[in-house]
């Protein structure tokens, strides 16, 4: 017997609005306004409009087909934006960019990305028909005292990297600096999550001596690099 397919999931109006408004904001500042500048190619304006159409149609016109909606409003929208940027070429050079507008547009893209997340519904979990009632389950363990400081340190470092990238004033290097800063921030945040959650969980670890031996080669490499750095600094 073939089970009946589940009804398509509907995208609530609040969720659509949460994605649409930041998406429109980011599109307007970073895609449409550069595409409307004097030197822009007409094809770039067309692809900018295609991006807008993909966003709006994805969110409003596909009804309950959530997968198709996301395909259009995420992949279609971003792909059309990327094609527009590629067609704009020199219009997007750092020397011609308005920094405030670019920063505001970046914020719009961040909000657009977060807008696709889902907020937990407000209903009480125990009211669900499948909920198993009983005494609340106690947590098996608590976070170690070093967990929060490590996470805070990583977040501060990540923000600092992004801020330092804005010091680079050479146009070609600025793009590289922002890409490098983003990569460094992601690496540090990822490593910090692992490091913070492993605090106080000794049972999964190898012994301290094994862990130290495991990084002996990289430690030696770092020592050599520091030695080279010291010689370099002394010779300058």
């Amino acid at each position: 017997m073939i089970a009946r397919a589940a009804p398509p999931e509907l995208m609530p109006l609040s969720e659509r609005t949460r994605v649409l408004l930041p998406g429109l904001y980011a599109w307007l500042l970073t895609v449409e306004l550069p595409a409307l500048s004097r030197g822009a190619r007409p094809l770039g304006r067309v692809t900018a409009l295609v991006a807008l159409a993909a966003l709006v149609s994805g969110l409003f016109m596909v009804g309950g087909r959530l997968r198709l909606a996301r395909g259009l409003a995420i992949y279609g929208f971003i792909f059309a934006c990327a094609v527009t940027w590629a067609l704009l070429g020199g219009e997007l050079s750092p020397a011609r960019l308005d920094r405030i507008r670019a920063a505001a547009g970046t914020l719009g893209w961040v909000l657009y990305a977060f807008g696709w997340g889902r907020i937990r519904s407000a209903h009480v979990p125990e009211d669900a028909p499948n909920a198993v009632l009983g005494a609340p389950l106690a947590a098996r363990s608590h976070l170690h005292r070093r967990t929060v400081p490590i996470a805070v340190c990583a977040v501060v470092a990540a923000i600092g990297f992004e801020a330092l990238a804005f010091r680079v004033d050479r146009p070609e290097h600025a793009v590289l600096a922002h890409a490098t800063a983003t990569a460094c921030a992601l690496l540090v945040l990822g490593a910090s999550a692992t490091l913070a959650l492993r605090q106080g969980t000794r049972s999964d670890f190898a012994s301290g001596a094994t862990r130290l031996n495991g990084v002996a080669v990289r430690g030696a490499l770092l020592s050599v690099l520091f030695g080279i750095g010291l010689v370099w600094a002394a010779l300058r």
Partner: protein
Amino acid sequence: MTDRVLMSRVANAVNLLLFLAACASFALGLYALGDRRDLQAIYWLVVGGISLKAATDMLRPRASGR
């Protein structure tokens, strides 16, 4: 305090130091890039990458065969 516990604490401290060194190295690399010192920027970014890799390698769980 037994030797095993002591070594574990030393390993934890080295782990945290490597992580902090990685953060500082990345920051110095980006700072040097802003000052147009490209070679120093590459140096610090490489140091940061190796430090972070070493810090995460120390967190690998114990091999199941042991």
